[in-house]
């Protein structure tokens, strides 16, 4: 199992690099210009200068290589620095600007100045992958956004799982009962109503008409007491509802199908022949087996937590990863788009692998070597 996992992991590296290359070339081909948001009052020469300052003039392959180095080499170092306070992501470099005397003095004091062959060098942090929109490291922004996404989409996912599994189990156990039919109907509705329809609808009803929940998600809210917790709940309810409806729909269908498959199996009869109660037969023997495919479906759905909720995030102004991607896209912030799509790709590949491994863990019949 371990070799299997490592082998898959290592094999996925070239795949990922290839994917990143394709995405990069795709984005290169894409039209659009990060300067599109700069007002027309700024003349073209100035925009050209700004582009050059962003490194846009360089050949694509050079840009790609820089991106690779920044993401795979410098960012991990920055991360380690942040963890342990080391200075791995720093290096000596001839100054790119003329430091003022006071600055020089303070740097000298910190031991950040040296002389090599008569040339002055400074101890400075390495160039990280910088977002064109914000001029700040892409990773920092992404890390800042992840909690928002996780909170809303993650809660929606958990809520959905908690609802979907019992519904699926019961619908399958009582196939074609009223509960099953109703469940099918509701899940179908959940499947069918797009979030860009439900979202605004909910806002009009609950925010505008009833005034119960805020229409705009407050990402600065800090939950530290009961009141703020209530606020957090209020602002989360609508986006969570919209998202959970869809996920529930999907998962409960899977669970039901998987349960139906297993209920007809011979071992169920064996369990009954042992005189076990129905509750144990269904909830232990059948559910345990039925969960195997469903767990992998759940695992495969996790990458979409990070990107799939774009429209819902947009509608409710939950400024999470999805919203980040779409604004970056419209602003042509290539480093951001590139890094985000690449992260999604990593997640997809990774969770594919995790799903496979989970399958092996849950199902003793499957052993990878």
């Amino acid at each position, binding site marked *: 199992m371990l070799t299997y996992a490592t082998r898959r992991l290592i094999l996925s590296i070239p795949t990922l690099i290839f994917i990143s290359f394709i995405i990069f070339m795709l984005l290169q081909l894409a039209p659009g210009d990060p300067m599109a948001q700069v007002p027309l009052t700024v003349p073209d020469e100035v925009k050209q200068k700004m582009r050059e300052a962003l490194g846009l003039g360089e050949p694509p392959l050079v840009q790609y290589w820089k991106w690779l180095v920044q993401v795979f080499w410098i960012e991990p170092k920055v991360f380690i620095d942040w963890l342990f306070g080391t200075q791995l992501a720093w290096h000596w470099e001839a100054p790119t600007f003329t430091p003022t005397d006071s600055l020089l003095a303070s740097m000298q004091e910190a031991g950040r100045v040296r002389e090599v062959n008569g040339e002055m060098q400074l101890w400075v942090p390495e160039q990280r992958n910088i977002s064109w929109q914000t001029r700040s490291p892409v990773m920092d922004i992404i890390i800042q956004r992840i909690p928002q996404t996780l909170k809303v989409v993650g809660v929606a996912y958990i809520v959905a799982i908690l609802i979907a599994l019992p519904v699926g189990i019961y619908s399958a156990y009582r196939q074609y009962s009223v509960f099953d039919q109703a469940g099918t109907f509701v899940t179908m509705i959940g499947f069918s109503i797009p979030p860009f329809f439900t979202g605004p609808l909910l806002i009009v009803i609950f925010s505008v008409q009833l005034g119960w929940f805020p229409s705009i998600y407050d990402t600065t809210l800090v939950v530290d007491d009961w009141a703020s917790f209530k606020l957090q709940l209020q602002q989360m309810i609508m986006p969570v509802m919209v998202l959970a409806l869809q996920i529930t729909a999907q998962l409960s269908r899977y669970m039901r199908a998987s349960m139906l498959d297993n209920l007809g199996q*011979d071992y169920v009869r*064996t369990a009954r*022949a*042992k*005189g*076990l109660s129905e509750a144990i037969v269904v909830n232990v023997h059948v559910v*345990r*087996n039925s969960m195997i495919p469903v767990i992998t479906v759940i695992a495969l759905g996790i990458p979409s937590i990070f990107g799939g909720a774009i429209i819902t995030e947009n509608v409710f102004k939950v400024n999470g990863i999805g919203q980040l991607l779409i604004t970056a896209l419209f602003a042509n912030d290539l480093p951001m788009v590139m890094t985000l799509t690449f992260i999604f790709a990593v997640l997809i590949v990774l969770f594919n692998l995790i799903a496979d491994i989970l399958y092996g863990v849950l*199902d003793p*019949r499957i052993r990878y070597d």
Partner: protein
Amino acid sequence: MLDDTTDTAATGAAEAQVPIARIDKLRVEFQTKDGTVVGVEDISFEINPGETVCVVGESGSGKSVSSLSLMRLIEYGGGDIAGGKMLFDRREGGVMDLATADQSVMRHIRGNEIGMIFQEPMTALNPVFTVGRQLTEGLRVHRGMSKAQAEARALELLREVRIPEPERRLKQYPHELSGGMRQRVVIAMALACKPRLLIADEPTTALDVTIQAEILALMDRLKRETGTAVMFITHDMAVVAQMADRVVVMFRGKKVEEGTVEEIFENPKHAYTKALLAAVPKLGEMTGKDLPEPMRLVGRTDQNLDPIKGSDEVLLRVENLVTRFPVKGGFFRRTVANVHATEDVSFTLNKGRTLSLVGESGCGKSTAGRSLLRLVEPLSGKIDLDGTDIMALSQSGLRDARREMQMIFQDPFASLNPQLQLADQVAEPLVNYGIGSGSEIQDKVANLFDRVELPRSFMRRYPHELSGGQRQRIAIARALALNPKLIVADEAVSALDVSVQAQVVNLMMELQAELGLGYVFISHDMAVVERVSHTVGVMYLGRIVELGPRRAVFEDPQHPYTKALMKAVPIADPRRRKAEKDLNFKPIPSPIHPVGYEAGPSVYEEVSPGHLVLTSDSGY
């Protein structure tokens, strides 16, 4: 019409007074979309303490339905007990009618007072729980044991069913056990709470002869030791002869005959029972005959029972055939080992004759058969079919060569495409090779249907509408379409009911006599092999350990493995029961060897003309 419980059980009849279970006019119905289907129409019989009652009958006759009804599990399968009584003598509390019992009461009876063993050992166990857990579950529910107590008892049970290394087994998952071991676990599970009645629904059908023999011996011993009454369901008459005290014969939902085992075998009354017994090939029937001859079926008068001579012309010569499957592993998915599926196999087959390959599951029979057609690529060796060197052919040459040799597969349900009409399936080889125009093909297909005795009205039907035997005939028709010289029949009759099996076997022999076909007949059923073969090869671990004329091999087995195999075959004669002590099997060693392992050549000693016995190491 039946006699009552007079002199029933020859063994352990001392305490046989009150029947432990009495089924009275049981009727079970299923509601399906085509209306009500009757699973069991009218069944009455009883089981006395310490007695083994065998229920026999063809597939679909209602054997499983009656046993499931007794457990009241039939409701979960959509069935409904529409009438009749099932009186059960509870340990305490006297006799009660299970047909009307509450499910909560049933829950107490199931597993506790009635144990059940199911047919399919793999699917009957929950794949995700350990053996130990599944064994202890019932104990903890019914006996209120603690975990440790239950485990101790489970261990004891595993010992009782003679599983090697029982401690280790408890922690293993079902798939880690072999089929035989799994079936023992199922038996241990059924016996866990010391039930008074044990229902065994075809407990050995899916197993190899050797393992079957062991399991049967085991059940017999357990019954004798604990005095449990057994209701044993099977369609295998030989097993009945080995196990039963009394026999109930079922036919299409009804009981047609009941009696002691000797009565049934020696003096069957009902026509169906007679026909059934006639259709069962019995090992030893051919003793003294050199050539195979078709079976005599009751009620058929038009049969040609002449022995099949075949010719002396060599059709197929196989020399030193080796086929291995790579086992990938390690970090780089390199081949780390090989499954030595067939190892240095050589034989010759003459035109119009049958060569049988027998042996236990996994010994490489199918691989050998497939290698002949190069459906799996052999590693080395020589295959010469009527002058064509099969091994040397290119893919297109191979395609042409396959006109000369065809294959029939084991599973009649899997070997036909469910989506195609039968006529199209039979016509497919003709179309593939561009033989004949559209109407010629139609004629030819119609003729083939006649040949295999299927009505032409079946031509436009789909496989699912046919019974197993009919499907197998379609497969035969398809194989015959190209007029091949050689047919490889891989367990072609193993999945069929005895009665149907007899017909298909006869059909194949008939065709052989008429068309001069050569068969490579692969089977693990020694009785059938005895009936059809000219030559027999016994395989063990990829090698042929004994090869020779059928008579020589069957009447004078030389290799120890052949001897053991012969002993394990149950004989359809209640007076020739086997004793447990005769049985002595070693588990088959693994055919997997690391890369680089070089298997030695097969060296044979010719004990009599054409009768070769392996003298080099076979692993046995």
